[in-house]
Structure formats: C-alpha cells, structure tokens
C-alpha cells in the first residue's frame, strides 16, 4: 500500500514530455538489454566455470579480433542512434513558434518572478493556457539559477546578464512542480513553485481577477504599456525619434542592423538589453556613439521594479513599436514627475 504510492514516472504536461519519454524508453531498453546480457553472462560463467578442484587446467585463450570488433561496433552504432534521436528531441526546444506570446521570468535569490505579456505579475507561480504555445525568456538578477519543470521535461540554466529562451505548449491541464535546479544558496530548495495549466474558461477567470488596475491614459495594462511609461520617463524619445540623434526604434525588433566597425547584429531581446546597459558595445553604423549607459538607473522603487524587470518592460515595448508609433514629447505625453528633462544630463549618475 505504502509502496503503491511511489510514482515511477513524472506527469506529462506537454507533447515534448512524451518525446523525451520515448527516447528514454529506447535508451532504457537498449542499455537494459546490454546490462542484462552482461549480468546473465557473469552469472552463467560464475556458476558453470566454478572451480571444481585444485590445480585445474584452463584453456589458454588470448582473445579474438572478430569479437573485439563486434562488441565495439555494435554498441557504437546504438550509441550514435541515441545521439541522433537525442538531437531531434533537443532541437524541438529551439523551434519556438513565431506567434507565441513571450513570458519573462526573472530569477533571484530565492524566488521566480513571472511577467506575462498582458501585464500580470506572479511570484513562484506560472499560469498557462492549455494548448497555447508560449515563449519563455529568462534572466537572473544575481547568481545562476535553473528553471526546471519535470512535467515538461524541460530545464534551462538562468544566467545573470543574459537572456535564455525556451518554450512550452502544455496539452494537459493540471498543476506541475517548478524547481530551481542549480545551487544558488541557502534558499535553493525553497526556490520552487507551481505551473498551472488551465482550460480556457478557468484561465480567463483567473486572468480577469488578476488584470492590473488602469490608472491614467488609454491603456491595456500590458507589459508593453508599462514599458512605454518607462520609455517616456527615461526620455528615450528625445534622441530615438524621427529627427533625433539616434536611430529610430520603429520596426527595429527582429531586423538585422549593421554595426560600426563592421559586422551585423540581429536585434533581439539580448541586443536591446545590451544597448541600454552598454551602449558602446555594438553601435549602429552611421550613428555617433553618444548614448549614455542606463545601468543602475532603471530600477524604480515607486513602480516596484528592479533593473531586470524594467528592462523586460522596455524590451516588450520596443518590440511593439510600429511605424509612426514613436511618442513625441508633447503635452499629451508629459515627462512623468521626477524625470530628468534636460537631455544633456540624461544618463548621468545621480
């Protein structure tokens, strides 16, 4: 009765999990057969060729080239099949569907902060809509963490200063465990949480209860909208506008831009983040390297945002910027209270 409660396989929350399981079964079958063969042979030899009497004469067998080749080649072929199959399964983790909405996850000692594109913020819980593929972009605020969900058979180290991405398409409603798998200090084993995969109705109910309050201006309360607030507060549009001193950011995301000093770079989350924190690292060809760094100036206590959280909002906003959408500084969009309004002082350390 006690034993019957022991689970032997973790739950499956998505198709990817089944793919990993099939590969696991294959390797188990092959290695199980190999191990069984060795064990049976050992047992057979040990019983059949037990010493019968002292001074027994044994045949002088030195080896066999044919056998050596046989038992090198056969395992090698099987191992290579495992490798190839493993690559196929592994690759699925890279094929993010382009239409998948992006969820940001910020890890810190010792919690997971999950940020939905619609503006919902969660801690140590991630609510997902069934059958909806989502792209998950992760970053750490301090040391290396690891975002592991056994039910999705997925795991990814979360590094400081760098975005990593994975994606899931859950296909079974349920509540699945989330772990931090990389030692990150005293609270390592407390850095756990839950993934809730919900049917459409349940999800909507949950989401409507969580929808952020809309205070000022026309807004949908989304992550991008919060990014827009920051964009205005930080005066980004002073330079990044049609007549500005810096490249316009409309439609920039996903494009490839030429770099000063040769080379190109694809504009993705990582590049935008780097350009805000280290503007000199990869300068757009044709523009002077005049942008000051915004490192250590993004955290906003009044909005309860850390630097990483502010960055993902800015990125979410820049991603959505279409032609003609760059805000101009008019009375309609006044600089928020407390913002620096003199462009020459922008980016200075306070």
């Amino acid at each position, binding site marked *: 009765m006690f034993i019957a409660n022991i689970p032997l396989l973790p739950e499956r929350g998505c198709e990817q999990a089944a793919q990993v399981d099939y590969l696991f079964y294959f390797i188990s079958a092959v290695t199980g057969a190999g191990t069984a063969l060795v064990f049976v042979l050992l047992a057979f030899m040990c019983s059949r060729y037990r010493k019968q009497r002292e001074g027994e004469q044994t045949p002088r067998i030195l080896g066999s080239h044919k056998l050596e080749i046989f038992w090198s080649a056969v395992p090698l072929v099987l191992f290579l099949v495992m490798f190839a199959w493993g690559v196929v399964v592994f690759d699925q983790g890279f094929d993010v569907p382009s239409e998948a909405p992006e969820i940001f996850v910020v890890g810190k000692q010792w919690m997971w902060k999950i940020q939905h594109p619609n503006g919902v913020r969660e801690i140590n819980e991630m609510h997902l809509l069934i059958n909806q593929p989502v792209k998950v972009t992760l970053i750490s605020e301090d040391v290396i963490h690891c975002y592991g969900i056994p039910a999705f058979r997925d795991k990814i180290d979360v590094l400081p200063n760098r975005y990593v991405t994975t994606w899931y398409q859950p296909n079974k409603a349920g509540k699945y465990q989330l772990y931090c798998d990389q030692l990150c200090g005293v609270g390592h084993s407390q850095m756990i949480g839950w993934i809730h995969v919900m049917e459409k109705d349940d999800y909507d109910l949950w989401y409507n209860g969580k929808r952020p309050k809309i205070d000022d201006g026309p807004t949908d309360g989304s992550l991008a909208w919060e990014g827009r607030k920051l964009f205005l507060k930080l005066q980004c549009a002073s330079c990044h506008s049609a007549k500005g001193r810096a490249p316009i950011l409309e439609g920039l995301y996903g494009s490839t831009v030429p770099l000063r*000093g040769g080379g190109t770079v694809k504009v993705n989350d990582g590049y935008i983040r780097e350009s805000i924190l*280290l503007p*000199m*690292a990869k*300068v757009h060809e044709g523009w002077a*390297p005049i942008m000051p760094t915004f490192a250590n100036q993004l955290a906003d206590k009044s909005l309860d945002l850390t630097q990483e959280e502010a960055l993902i909002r800015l990125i979410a906003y820049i991603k959505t910027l279409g032609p003609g959408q760059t805000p101009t500084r008019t009375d309609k969009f006044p600089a928020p209270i407390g913002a620096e309004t003199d462009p020459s002082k922008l980016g200075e350390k306070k």
Partner: protein
Amino acid sequence: MSTDSTSVLAHHYDTMEQQQGSARLGMWLFLVTEVLFFGGIFVAYTAYRIWYPEAFLAASAKLNVLIAGINSLLLLTSSLTITFAIHASHEGKQADLRRWLLVTIALAIAFLGFKSREYYNDYREHLIPGKMFYSVPEGEKHTPAQEFEEKGVNPHHVQLFFMFYYCMTGLHVLHMIVGIGLIAWLYILAKRNYFHHPDRYVYVEVTSLYWHFVDMMWFFLVALLYVAGSRQHFEWHL
C-alpha cells in the same frame, strides 16, 4: 663501471644514461604541464578577445613596448648564457660554469628590475582594474575609465584585459623567480664542487630546459599583451 660513476648514480638506477634520461624525461613532462597551465589562461584570454576585440586592442596600446623589447632581449640572452653553462659543465670547466650561471642570474634580475619599473608606471597611470581605474592619476585630467570611454570602448572590458595582463605577467614573474632560485642553487652546488663529475651536467641541462620554457612563454606574452594593439606613435620611455 668506475667508482666515480657509481657514486653519482642513485641506488635505484642501473646506468648513468638511465638516470640522466629520467631527469630529462621528467622535466619535459613537467614542461607539458606548464604548457597546459599557461594554456588555460591563454584560452581564457582568447575567449574574451573574441568577444571584446576593440577593448583589448585599445588596452594593449597602453603597455610599454620599449620595456617589453628590452626584457625580451635580456631573457633571450640569458637563454644563450645558460646554454653556455651546460657546455662548460659538460666539458668539466667549472670556473666557466660558475661564470655563466652568474651572468644568467644577473640578466634575469635585470629583467625583473625592468618589469618592476613597468608595474610602477602602470600603477602611476592607474591602469589597475578596480577602484583605481576610476580615479584620476596624478598629473592627468581623466581617469583611465573615462579615457577609454572616449575612445568608444567599454572600460569593464579594458579592465578584463588588464586583469589578464597582471595574471599572465604575474605568473611569468613567479616562474622567473623560481628559475632564478634553481640557477642560484646550481651556482651554490658548483661552488661546492658538485659538478666535478661531468655526468652531473644533466642537472644544468634540465634547469636550462625550464629556463628556455620561461623565455618561450615570454615571447607569447609579448605577442598577446604588448604588441597586439595598434600604436599610433612611438612613445619611448622607461
């Protein structure tokens, strides 16, 4: 087997060739471990150089190539003199042996003298990763960080270069000091007439292998640290 030869032969060897061969083989193997030791730091350097080529180039131009050149010559010359020392000991010329060992030590100490001078200059120019990098050196207007920022390179990456500069040259200096110690020990042995038996020349030879290796590593340090940058003009100062 002469009595003379058995007295220099350790108890667990059969022949002098075996003993000498073991000493040589041991040193060669040790040098392979040294290659991997320096290789580890070289590969770290290379990884960051691939990522931050501009910063490394700009930082390299700040190093004193004149001192590096003089030091290269000093070290190369010491490699030559220790080779002469092997010949002297192999031919049983003990006075020559002592003289060449002394010359080698003198050249090595001169190298360290120039190197200290260079470190001192770096210190005065605040080319040291950390807080000093962000403070204004005496007689200057800008901090090193500002200076590099004006050139359009990230001061963090420049500091990484300087970290490698200190680690690599520091390890090299450490190897030099060990080498000087070994050669000084040979000199003391020579004074005590240890090398009266020419077969013992192998210890001079084995030490010279180590010394040449230290020399060799220096050439790679020059290539990666000192002359890797583009210099606009000659700044000959010590």
